[in-house]
């Protein structure tokens, strides 16, 4: 069992992997991968029990997920530098052929529906497991997310925990400038969810919140995060949604993540 300091160290390792793999690939999504790193660390190295399932609905954060899966032993860490390369095992977005990835993702808005299906199956089979799904906030522009949100409540899927990586940026700008999501919390509450907010970079807080449950209601955790967290010049910087660092930027990133 890891203590909080060890988990924070793990998060740094993951961040180094993210920058390394994206730089090696020459493309990828550093901003959104860095913003959900702490959530993934909390899930994979503390919260998730044997039998629990995870879906990365914001599939472009694949570099983060791959780093986690490598550290969990699904495949060698050396595979990370082959991200996106010709004939590579690690595809640009999660692929079901990768060990530890249950279902491919990358096209936004679909994960909550899929997670609902898993949660429904668990209820049907009377399994005592939990289903976790991480979504982006820009992703919540997709109508399908709200179709799924209604389903989660209707079927009382209290075995489902959805986390929104609320970094307040999407591709074309700030979420509130593109299509404003606020009042975001109230929207989920209106849809019947049990909603909590958390600092998306405080691993202890994340663990506490991820372990909460309200009978009969699905759980939405709005994790307030910073896109690009961990690398100062990437933080809150739109440019690093889907761009690899330059040689100099790479060196600076790794220096900060020492």
């Amino acid at each position: 069992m890891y203590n909080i300091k060890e988990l924070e160290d793990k998060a740094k390792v993951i961040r180094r992997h993210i920058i390394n793999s994206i730089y090696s690939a020459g493309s990828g999504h550093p901003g959104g991968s860095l913003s959900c790193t702490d959530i993934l660390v909390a899930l994979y190295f503390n919260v998730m029990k044997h039998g629990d399932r995870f879906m990365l609905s914001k599939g472009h954060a694949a570099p983060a997920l791959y780093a986690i899966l490598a550290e969990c032993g699904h495949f060698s860490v050396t595979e990370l530098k082959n991200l996106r390369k010709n004939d590579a095992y690690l595809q640009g977005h999660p692929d079901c052929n990768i060990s530890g990835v249950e279902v491919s993702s990358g096209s936004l808005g679909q994960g909550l529906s899929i997670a609902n299906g898993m949660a429904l199956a668990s209820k049907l089979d009377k399994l005592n497991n939990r289903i976790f799904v991480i979504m982006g906030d820009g992703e919540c522009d997709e109508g399908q997310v709200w179709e799924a949100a209604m389903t989660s409540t209707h079927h009382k899927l209290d075995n489902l925990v959805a986390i929104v990586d609320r970094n307040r940026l999407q591709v074309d700008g700030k979420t509130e400038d593109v299509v404003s999501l606020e009042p975001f919390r109230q929207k989920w509450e209106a849809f019947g969810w049990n909603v909590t907010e958390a600092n998306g970079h405080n691993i202890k807080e994340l663990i506490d919140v991820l372990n909460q449950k309200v009978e009969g209601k699905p759980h939405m955790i709005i994790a307030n995060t910073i896109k690009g967290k961990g690398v100062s010049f990437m933080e809150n910087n739109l440019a690093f949604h889907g761009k690899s660092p330059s040689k100099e930027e790479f060196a600076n990133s790794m220096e900060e993540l020492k």
Partner: protein
Amino acid sequence: MTELSTREACGLTLVKLGEKEKNIVVLDADLSASTQTRKFAEKFPNRFFDMGCAEQNMIGTAAGLALSGKVAFASTFASFMTRGWEQIRNTVAHDNINVKLIASHSGFTDAADGATHQCFEDIAIMRCLPNMCVFSPVDVIETEQIIENEIHRKGCSYIRLNRIGMPKVNDDNYKFEIGKPVKLTEGNDVTIFATGTMVSEALKSREILQKENISVLIINVPSIKPLDKNKIVKYAKDTGLVVTVEEHNIYGGLGSTIAEILIENYPVKMKIMGVKDRFGESGEYKHLQQKFGLNYEEIVKNTKDLIRSGKTHE
């Protein structure tokens, strides 16, 4: 004499097989009375999920259930299934998830409802998806067997059903085989490949053509993808002239499928009969058949025209 429509046959089969196949789950998008999945819902309420008017969500949920060991049947009208095409493409087909798409009311069999509820594009957009099997059963027994087959076959499929009862085509000894076209009649002059509702129209045309000493080799194609290329080539070689007929756009459906095979292996003169790249409209089914040129009279006419135009290989 007409029997049950293929949508009714599907509804009953799911109930019958649902008893022993405990892993079957069925989803619908608020159309269970029309699609007939309501029968399953009444018998096995905890294994039925009405997703409401939300097709994309239905597809994703079906995928999640299938990823948890269920065989998920997701049902709605063919026209509305297309709303979830991207989800079908990027999740169901890409990962070859055990989801069976039950697309009811295909073609213009939902005659009175009109254009938005009719569907002429579904074969085209489903067969171009890798991993997606595309089935088009002609009658009750074929529907039952395709459904049963699909319960045990791992992988995704699109099953095209219609709203209206059609005559029985196969006898009780019939055995559906995935990929296999089915010879229904012997003939020397023209090969007619047909699917779904148009099979019985092709069979009706045969009697009239016989009176003019024209014999047609009629082939039912219930498995549009996969499809045994060798059999298609053989049936084309048997006559040297091909007509295809489907309640679907002339672009991209059965006709295109046959043409793709023949142009590479044995090019012959072909006439592709289908909806001539237009949208549907309200009316009675028989009237629409006539208006769209998809009845036995038109098959007779096109067959004779093809013979008159001469063969590619003499």
